């Protein structure tokens, strides 16, 4: 790898930890701009202050360990500094998640346990699976294409130039990829099935608009799951396997893997947030219908 490549790699490595550590605060602040009139304003401000201070503290810890590692040329400390991204978890689950719950206190389960009177439609609304055969066909064709291409390149390349590690990775990659794809499809199949059975209680009049909102949300949820888990993820792994056989550059593969993984993660978060916002919209609409005088 040339000097500029190493520089790019170092830059990515350097940015990875602070971006990860700042993401809970960024997420909370972006939710705050979306929710203009939060309840529990004082408690919310106190918690956001705590999150800001905790983020600063984590960044300071990371930077201190990195600087000491660089000054003393300690590879162990430098390694520890790259692992500082793990501090994301206490920041996210300990502080940011409770804040988001405070912001959306009206986001209740579809059927609140304390609700004594419950209504449902007795018409079978046919919760059809929006994932068609061609979706599966497209994904499995692209995955098979990457597998065949990887196998073909590996067989036709001069393997004497390979290190034992490269040969090992190619062989086990070829063997491990199909079960991984099948496993992903199985997880997706059951995930979509569970998602289609999510509660969709109607109002007492069986409002058509509410039914349409449910239909749209259900369909979006299932399709997002497919494109993320059933297409992008296995295709991404297939592409990585193919590239690692074709291009013998661990650095480049590392950067591509990290970038692709981050993008997949961001797409997953977007899909999750989008599904939550749709649920919120439905919950509000249902509440409006139930409180309207005609009901």
């Amino acid at each position, binding site marked *: 790898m040339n000097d500029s490549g190493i520089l790019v790699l170092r830059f990515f490595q350097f940015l990875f930890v602070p971006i990860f550590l700042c993401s809970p605060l960024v997420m909370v602040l972006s939710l705050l701009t979306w929710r203009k009139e939060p309840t529990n304003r004082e408690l919310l401000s106190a918690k956001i202050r705590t999150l800001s201070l905790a983020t600063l503290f984590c960044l300071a810890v990371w930077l201190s360990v990195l600087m000491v590692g660089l000054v003393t040329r300690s590879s162990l400390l430098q390694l520890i500094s790259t692992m500082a991204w793990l501090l994301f978890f206490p920041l996210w689950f300990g502080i940011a998640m409770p804040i988001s719950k405070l912001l959306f206190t009206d986001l209740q389960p*579809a*059927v609140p*346990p304390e*609700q*004594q*009177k*419950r*209504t*449902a*439609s*007795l*018409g*079978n*609304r046919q*919760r059809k699976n929006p994932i068609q055969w061609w979706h599966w066909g497209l994904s499995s064709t692209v995955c098979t294409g990457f597998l065949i291409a990887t196998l073909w390149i590996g067989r036709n390349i001069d393997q004497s130039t390979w290190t034992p590690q490269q040969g090992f990775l190619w062989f086990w990659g070829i063997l491990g990829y199909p079960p991984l794809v099948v496993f992903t499809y199985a997880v997706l199949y059951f995930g979509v099935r569970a998602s289609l*059975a*999510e*509660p*969709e*209680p*109607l109002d*007492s*009049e*069986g409002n058509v608009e509410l039914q349409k909102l449910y239909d749209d949300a259900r369909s979006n949820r299932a399709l997002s799951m497919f494109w993320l888990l059933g297409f992008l993820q296995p295709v991404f792994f297939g592409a990585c396997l193919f590239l690692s056989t074709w291009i013998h550059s661990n650095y480049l593969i590392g950067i591509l893997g990290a970038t692709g993984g981050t993008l997949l993660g961001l797409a997953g978060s977007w899909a999750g947030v989008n599904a939550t916002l749709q649920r919120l919209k439905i919950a509000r609409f249902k509440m409006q219908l139930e409180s309207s005088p005609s009901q």
Partner: protein
Amino acid sequence: MITISLNSPIPLHDQLVQEIRRLLADGTLKVGDELPPVRQLANDLGINLNTVARAYRELTDCGLLATSRGRGTVVLSTIEKTTEKPAEEKKRIETTLSSALADAKIAGLNRKEIELLVLRQLNKLWGVS
């Protein structure tokens, strides 16, 4: 639409049975209509699967519903299959009706009001004559 109440003294599966029978009687549910799967209805109402399954089973035993693989639960008939003789059945219905009318009288309703109530229910089930 069906509605159940968790704080009613009537057991949940009986409420479900009554609600489905009401929809069969007033023509909302017709022969051949598909009912939602047990799991889906239980999820929507936030109640146990077995409660819905029990209600469906009771209605299946009465010959009102039929459950088949692939098609789920469908309305088989809107007339109940009964083991009772017609005279006994009429007697049972008359007893239930007389008890409901006695309730209405004790609740303070006068004859005219009760007649209106009965007429409204008759119109719901058979249409306005």
